[in-house]
């Protein structure tokens, strides 16, 4: 190739390359890509869908296992109750499924699971079942709105007959055949008892402030407690409620929350240095600080021996922002299950449930069945229902 031709071809190639480079530089549109970030479609509309996959897909729970700790549900549970089945010595656990409000049951002898009702209560979040197994009270939450319904279980067609409570329900608990519940009324909270059989309610007491947390007793006439909802930065005060009268107790403090019965209280407050738990004897009025720390909302107490409390407790050091961060779902605990007897001054580890299950269990909604050989609780982390088989000591 002659030298001039070679130079001409080379110049043309260089010009072409420069033209391509200039085109890419000035005219090219980049691809729709946010670099390392994934493109997102954003939509504020949340549609309600019914979880049709829930029916029949629950794993069989192995209740006949000799393990003491058993996971009863794998999906979020809004409420539960152990019942003695009619004409049988076996007992079942009825439970309300979160999201749908469907009610299921597990036979604790055979492990058989049944759908009791298939009526949907959208966004069901919290529920209670009466001791006779005939009624439920379910609260659902959608957006910023809470609705509360009472359902009558129709065994024949697996449905619920629902009655809406047209009041702002702030707290509720099921008894054998009625419900205790509290509603906002002006600048107060009114405690009531509702009879679903007659669809009537009667007033029990009035708490003269709105932001009330209530510890319900075991009957309408039993002792109840109320306190302003806990905040680590605001002072709280304990009030005893009985026979319609609200009486201040010598318990107060920042971050106060409590649990108790007519004889004893367990409560925790934020002291200047630590989050501290105490025991309070209603009879002697004596306060005893405890060497272990627990959040009272993780406790239940025995009905037959009122000095016995069963609580979830994490051996970690509690920060001074507890319980706020726990309520927010920022802090979670890996609990152990403890039994303490205030009269006997004893505390026993029932189970290191987090270690035994191999997962963090943040215990809430603890309760005992009637014979008190079963401790139930919900794992706050995933709202699943758990059972611990408790040995009942002689004399207990």
């Amino acid at each position, binding site marked *: 190739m002659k030298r001039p031709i070679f130079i001409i071809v080379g110049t043309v190639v260089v010009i072409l390359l420069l033209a391509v480079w200039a085109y890419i530089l000035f005219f090219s549109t980049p691809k729709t890509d946010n670099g390392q970030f*994934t493109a997102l479609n954003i939509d504020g509309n*949340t549609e309600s869908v019914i979880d049709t996959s829930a029916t029949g897909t629950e794993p069989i729970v192995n209740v006949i296992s000799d393990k003491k700790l058993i996971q009863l549900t794998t999906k979020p549970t809004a409420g539960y109750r152990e019942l003695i089945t009619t004409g049988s010595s076996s007992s079942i656990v009825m439970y309300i499924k979160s999201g749908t409000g469907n009610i299921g049951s597990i036979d604790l002898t055979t492990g058989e699971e049944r759908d009791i009702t298939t009526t949907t209560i959208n966004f069901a979040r919290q529920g209670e079942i009466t001791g006779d197994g005939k009624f439920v009270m379910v609260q659902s939450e959608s957006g910023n709105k*809470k609705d509360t319904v009472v359902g009558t279980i129709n065994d024949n067609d697996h449905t619920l007959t629902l009655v809406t409570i047209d009041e702002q329900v702030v707290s509720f608990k099921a008894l054998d055949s009625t419900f205790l519940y509290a509603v906002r009324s002006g600048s107060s909270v009114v405690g009531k008892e509702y009879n679903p059989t007659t669809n009537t309610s009667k007033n029990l007491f009035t708490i003269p402030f709105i932001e009330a947390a209530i510890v319900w007793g075991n009957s309408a006439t039993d002792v109840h407690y109320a306190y*302003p909802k806990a905040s680590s*930065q*605001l*002072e709280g005060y304990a009030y005893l409620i009985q026979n319609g009268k609200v009486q201040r107790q*010598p318990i107060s403090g920042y971050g106060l929350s409590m649990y108790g019965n007519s004889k004893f209280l367990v409560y925790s407050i934020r002291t200047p240095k630590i989050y501290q738990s105490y025991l309070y004897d209603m009879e002697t009025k004596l306060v005893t600080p405890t060497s272990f720390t627990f959040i009272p909302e993780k406790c239940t107490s025995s009905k037959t021996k009122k000095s016995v409390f069963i609580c979830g407790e994490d051996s970690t050091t509690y920060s001074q922002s507890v*319980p706020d961060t726990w309520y927010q*779902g920022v802090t979670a605990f890996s609990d152990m299950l403890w039994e303490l007897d205030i009269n006997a001054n004893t505390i026993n580890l029932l189970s290191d449930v987090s270690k035994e299950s191999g997962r963090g269990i943040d215990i809430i909604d603890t309760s005992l069945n009637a014979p008190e050989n079963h401790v139930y609780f919900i794992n706050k982390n995933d709202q699943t229902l758990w059972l611990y088989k408790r040995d009942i000591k002689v004399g207990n």
Partner: protein
Amino acid sequence: MRTLILFSITLLSLFATTPIFAQINNDTLNLNPELGITLQPNSPQPGESVTASLEDSSGSVYGASITWIIDGTEVPNSRNQRQINFVATTVGKTQNVRAVLTKESGYEKIIQENIHPVYLDIIIEPQTRTPGFYLGRALPSIGSTINATALISDTGFYDTDLMYVWKINNKVLDGGAIRGRNQVSFPAPIGRQFTLSVQISELNGTIITSRNISIPSVEPKILFYEVSSLFGISEKAIAESVIETSNNTTVRAEPYNLDIQVYNNPVVHEWKVTNGNYTNVGNNPYEVTVQPSGTTGNTLLSFHVRDTTQFLQGAEGNTQINF
């Protein structure tokens, strides 16, 4: 006549200079405010630790021995102490605190105070935002409305038909004492905390009790939660600002402690992904649904809510999403 006048003046002078030692009761004490017992706190609650101090600005007890008696029993190790500590009696009872002053001449003077401890609870109910599942109480933020309720009780609540004087940072609310006003609403003042005080009196002006408390004022803060179309909002905050998902995910921003009025009508509310604004928000300005485009990666999701008339009423937060 002149003699009579001189005699009268002399007699009056003698009365004026004669020591006042005698058996006197509390009523007599009231005529002599220079001598008395002061309590700290001045309105003790049942079971509260109390310090009683003998106040004698006139110096009239100089040289007298002091004996402290509570409910008829001498307080151990209190002889000749000007100050004693004790625990206020239980609810529903009255406690008599007495200081017996004895001069060398044998004259005795008794000064006393009767304490009827009552509880005065001030319940703070901030009108700020917390989500429905939050079991605790909201906190005030600057400019947000606070409702305060004063509850006075011993064995039961007192009738609220009393006189109430409320103060914020020592500034009287509503111009002075108001009958039956056991509840007040006011905006949280500027500052990290402030003092709220209330004094409660009988209708005749007799002070029953008083108290002041310190109330925090916090900055609103945003936490993010996943929202399930089946179960609703999760009660677990998105951990460590990271959420991992391979599906459409609805996220709700919860501005804790934001004034509820601002929450309901936010002037500024904006979602951002990386640095771009997203205006395509549905009916609920606090929720967005994010959808992966099929490629893996991560993105920063942030939310900002604010009131323009009260610029401190607002919060910004962000969380990272991995796909």
